[in-house]
């Protein structure tokens, strides 16, 4: 299927990992140009992902600084989204996609206690996407999340990310799509 985003410009931010590479590859295959920074406002598509795990569990946190360390990733991502928004809005087209943890939907998808803080920060990012969707919607800019969990491969996550960036996904905004192989028994 032609996703209708040939010639668009995308920035993929987050750790230098397999998922980031898979997102870049999938977008490039649709003819999207890859940017390396917000630059002078040419980015049409902004994809942010974070590494899963590696955090202290909630009951092991001893100091607020450990919480702020996770929170700072949220803050930096929101700041980047905010910086990218005006140019997208002025062109009347834009896509924000956040790749977060399916653990933010169901405890079943928190595989290990070192992923608890990922679930928590993903909740904040998903809420921010809702707010951003409401504010940026009139300018034809969408904001969605992909929640990874289970045994999802980087390519499977990247496929959902790329779909949400497509022209055809233009009426989908403020939502979170799980790519988690059916893990989690929450009905909604």
């Amino acid at each position, binding site marked *: 299927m032609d996703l209708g985003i040939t010639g668009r410009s995308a920035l993929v931010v987050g750790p230098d990992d397999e998922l980031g590479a898979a997102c870049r590859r999938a977008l490039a295959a649709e003819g999207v140009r890859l940017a390396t920074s917000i630059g002078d406002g040419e980015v049409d598509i902004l994809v942010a992902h974070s590494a899963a795990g590696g955090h202290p*569990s*909630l*009951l092991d*946190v001893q*100091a*607020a600084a450990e*919480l*702020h360390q996770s*929170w*700072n990733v*949220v*803050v*930096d991502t*929101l*700041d980047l*989204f*905010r910086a990218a*928004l*005006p140019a997208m809005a002025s062109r009347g087209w834009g896509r924000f996609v956040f790749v977060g943890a399916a653990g*933010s939907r169901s*405890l079943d998808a*928190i595989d290990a*206690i070192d992923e*608890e803080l990922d*679930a*928590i*920060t993903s*909740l*904040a990012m*998903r*809420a*921010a996407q*809702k*707010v*951003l969707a*409401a*504010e*940026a919607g009139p300018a034809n800019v969408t904001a969605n999340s992909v929640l990874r969990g289970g045994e999802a491969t980087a390519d499977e996550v990247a496929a959902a990310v790329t779909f949400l960036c497509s022209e055809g996904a233009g009426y989908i905004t403020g939502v979170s799509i799980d790519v988690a192989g059916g893990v989690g028994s929450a009905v*909604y």
Partner: protein
Amino acid sequence: MDYGINDKVAIVSGGSRGIGRAIAEALLGEGAFVMISARTEVTLAAAAVELDALAPGRVAAVAADMTDPDGVQAVVDATRARFGPVSIAVSNVIGHVIDSKKEGDGPGAGNFASMPAAEYRREFQHLFVSAWALAHACIPDMRAQRWGRICNIGSGVAREPATELPHVLPNVVRPAVAGMHRILAARLAGDGITVNNILTGSILTDRNLSYWNWLAGETGSTFEAVTAGFHSRIPLRRQGKPEEMAALVAFLCSQRAARITGQSIPVDGGITRHL
């Protein structure tokens, strides 16, 4: 109904006014010992005197900044010294005000497109770190007793962001706070500790009145007009009362509610639309 919490020791932050004050009163009414805390010493001391008249010898007050983990620890230590190990922790801290001249003590105002990064950090300290710090400081006592109640006064925006209002800060941080409580509930269930979160709707407090007055000024409207417009969207057609928040909190803190944990429960007159 006997709530079964006679002589249990409780801490209520933001306990001098509004919702926190009503919660302190309700817990005292069930026979608990209650430590209230707030930043403003004068208001806090006055509230303690009034509450003491209702339940002599059962209430104490320590002024502290409950967004600061050191302040929280001082209050918990003082509570243990005065009443004994803590069984009930009610976290009731409001979001930070960026400019009270503009916001009328309402949530820090601003939309996504204009909110600087530093404000998200401050809001996280106020709403998330405060609740974490109180739970963290009280969990050892609760585990030792194999009985505990952790209750957070959250907001309905944790489930449905109020995107029609310029409240991006609580809209973003409150869901994270709800998630923390959900996870804590799972981790602490085996210790006889329940953890719940209240999705507060519009409750008539001094702060709430101040917010409506600010909004009326901001929109060139009147207090009556903005509240009437808002009330028409609430199925019960009115704002809640602090004692209606306290009623749920006291129930959740009771022996009867021992099987209710990890929940976010609205007290909002039915305004949230989520199924």
